[in-house]
């Protein structure tokens, strides 16, 4: 083994420092030091370059690991947005700015302050939205249509792959391995967060743990009538939360229609995003209030998880679905440059969401923190609700992802937003109670809205007068046009061949699906075989344990009935004992 491997192996042993040091003296101290100092230097250099590394460590130490996971997620999203902004700006915006220095703004429109909020007016004619991009070919070489299409498509595919990989890695950890013991008593006991140092936090966590443990213990002791009552309460809560969400969705739809009828001034377009953000802020409070009245149920923790989390998620999905439906069916028919209108609506939603996050953070967390610590200490310090904050992040990022086709520079706003949000939340963060929110839950929420967006794009025809896809029937028609162009020169035949025989042919997709199904079947069979093996091995362990007890009993009986005078016999018995203990 090399010196480094040997030292790594020693590190892995749970021995005290002095014992480890003894082991180390066997080989050269100095050469090892040289190798290691270089290695450590690289590691510490990398640590200082990473963004917010020191702050993250401080947060993890002070507030616990679930709050830290929120900030890690925030940083991950920030990196995503920086990447998407650079890609979009580099491939789409810069060629346009280079070729066409003056945007074609009508003479009577000038910049007023309201554009920052509403996104319309002056901004409509800039590169902010879809409508600002032309379908020309820059410098006879760079086709803007293809550039726009491929940039957005490749970015979406890359994001999808990155999400799937991170989901797959956390899937294994959180779902497969944590299978049947995910919420068991053992897990609760072993997940005591050692990094919590605040006295009050410790007391609160102990109370929560005691509640969870007594719930677990009582689960077994329930009678039938109590179980029925629990199911009734669960069903009632679910019904209430769903009804509330559907009601909000319907009201948003009618509000959009009303706004369209009286659409006169720019300021009135701010009404819909304002109401949407208000709903997103207030309704979750209703859900948690509902939980506070649940005194008579002993399954409080479970109902809290069910109602509050899935209720919040469902509410936001309903609102997004209603808005997308409205944009697809009404806006697309009515306006000439409908993509820019949708882009503006999304811009307004993003801005208002940020404003309300800041306000909510200020009033909800900061003020109640101050009141709790200085003025009315009986209230106690509020908790940093990780699940709700993560859901807010997912919602804003979903808005940005839906909007990237319509407003390519939206990630710039997201970058600013996340940067400010990090410092804001850091001030407000406080210890978090024991939480079972896992990573897979977070990231899987991204997938459905992105499919909605793709469906939106496939079905609709681009507008006639503006944007890079003017005059085409379908967004994907731009690839067809390119293929027909390529059929001329002889050196691109392989591209055309791939396009016609691979991407357009149904046989290819059928084969790919078949291969995936076969692979899934193989993995499934292997899993089943391994489960059976695990069952057999467990049984074997139990049997070995029984054998051990049987032999020990026999040995003890033997020793009692034949007190040993012969030293040779004594030695035989010792050998026998050793063999028995070898089995243990």
């Amino acid at each position: 083994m090399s010196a480094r491997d040997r030292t790594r192996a020693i590190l892995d042993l749970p021995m005290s420092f002095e014992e480890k040091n003894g082991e180390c003296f066997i080989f050269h101290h100095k050469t090892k030091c040289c190798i290691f100092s270089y290695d450590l230097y690289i590691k510490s250099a990398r640590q200082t370059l990473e963004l917010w590394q020191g702050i993250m460590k401080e947060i993890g130490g002070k507030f616990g690991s679930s709050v830290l996971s929120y900030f890690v997620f925030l940083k991950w999203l920030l990196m995503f947005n920086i990447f998407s902004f650079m890609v979009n700006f580099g491939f789409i915006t810069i060629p346009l700015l280079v070729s066409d220095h003056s945007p074609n703004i009508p003479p009577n429109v000038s910049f007023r302050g309201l554009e920052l909020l509403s996104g319309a007016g002056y901004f409509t004619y800039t590169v902010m939205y879809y409508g600002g991009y032309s379908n020309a070919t820059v410098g006879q070489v760079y086709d803007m249509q293809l550039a726009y299409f491929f940039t957005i498509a490749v970015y979406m595919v890359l994001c999808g792959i990155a999400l799937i990989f991170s989901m797959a890695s956390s899937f294994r950890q959180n779902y497969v391995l944590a299978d049947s013991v995910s919420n068991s008593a053992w897990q609760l006991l072993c997940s005591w967060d050692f990094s919590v140092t605040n006295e009050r936090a410790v007391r609160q966590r102990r109370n929560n743990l005691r509640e969870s443990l007594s719930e677990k213990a009582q689960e077994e002791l329930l009678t039938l009538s109590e179980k029925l009552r629990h199911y009734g309460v669960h069903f009632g809560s679910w019904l209430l939360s769903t009804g509330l969400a559907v009601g909000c969705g319907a009201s948003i739809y009618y509000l959009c229609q009303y706004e369209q009828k009286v659409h006169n001034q720019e300021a009135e377009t701010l009404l819909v995003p304002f109401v949407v953000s208000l709903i997103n802020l207030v309704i979750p409070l209703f859900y948690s209030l509902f939980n506070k009245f649940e005194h008579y149920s002993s399954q409080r923790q479970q109902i809290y998880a069910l109602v509050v989390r899935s209720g919040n998620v469902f509410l936001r999905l309903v609102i997004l679905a209603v808005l997308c439906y409205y944009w697809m069916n009404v806006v697309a028919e009515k306006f000439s440059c409908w993509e820019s209108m949708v882009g503006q609506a999304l811009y307004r939603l993003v801005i208002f969401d940020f404003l309300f996050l800041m306000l909510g953070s200020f009033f909800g967390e900061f003020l109640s923190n101050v009141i709790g610590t200085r003025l009315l200490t009986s209230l106690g310090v509020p908790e940093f609700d990780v699940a709700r904050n993560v859901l807010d992040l997912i919602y804003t990022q979903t808005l940005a992802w839906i909007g990237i086709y319509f407003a390519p520079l939206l990630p710039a706003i997201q970058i600013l937003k996340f940067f400010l949000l990090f410092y804001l939340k850091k001030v407000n963060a406080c210890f978090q109670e024991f939480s079972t929110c896992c990573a897979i839950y977070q990231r899987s929420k991204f997938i459905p809205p992105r499919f909605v967006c793709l469906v939106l794009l496939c079905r609709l025809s681009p507008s006639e007068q503006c944007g890079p896809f003017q005059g085409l029937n379908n967004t994907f028609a731009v690839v067809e046009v390119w293929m027909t162009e390529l059929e001329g020169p002889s050196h691109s035949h392989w591209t055309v061949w791939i396009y016609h025989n691979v991407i357009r042919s149904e046989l290819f997709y059928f084969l790919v699906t078949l291969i995936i199904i076969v692979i899934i079947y193989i993995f499934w069979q292997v899993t089943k075989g391994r489960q059976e093996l695990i069952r057999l091995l467990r049984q074997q362990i139990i049997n070995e344990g029984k054998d051990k007890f049987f032999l020990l009993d026999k040995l003890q009986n033997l020793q009692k009935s034949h007190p040993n005078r012969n030293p040779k016999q004594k030695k035989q018995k010792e050998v026998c004992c050793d063999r028995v203990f070898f089995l243990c």
Partner: protein
Amino acid sequence: MGTTASQLDKDLLSEYQELTFLTKQEILLAHKRFSELLSKDERNFENTRVSMERILTLPELKSNPFRERICHVFSTSDQKNGSLTFEDFLDLLSAFSDSATLEIKSHYAFRIFDFDDDGTLDCGDLEKLVNCLTGETDDTRLTTDEMRQLINNILEESDIDKDGTVNLSEFQHVISRSPDFVSSFKIVL
């Protein structure tokens, strides 16, 4: 191997870096915090042992329900009184650091939870563990029925060889399926 007056030698520092999971900054911070616990004359001696009471004044350990068990487990003193030298302290921080492996953490967790130090977790150990985590006063404890039910659940799920106790391998098996353990078994100065 001991600590000098107020600064660590470069050799010692790199040795500590190799044999523990801590980074250079963490070791220096640990040295600073440990020196603050010593009185002026004690700082001049090498290898001073700090009593458990003084270690427990550290804010990171003060509110931890397992503070005394942690000191006992990491202590190398002959009198078994939980006192720690600087190297014991580094061992402690290394086991609780970010980069420690799952095996190390689960090994030490097992030793911390083993209240009677007999190498297995039997019913008595489990009961003390639950009481430690739920509270020491009478009104915050679980009732005897709940406790019995809970311990039965725990043993049913983790006692693979059905001998009524949880040994190290069974404990490590349960821990390996818990995704939160590595991130929650952490103490950072």
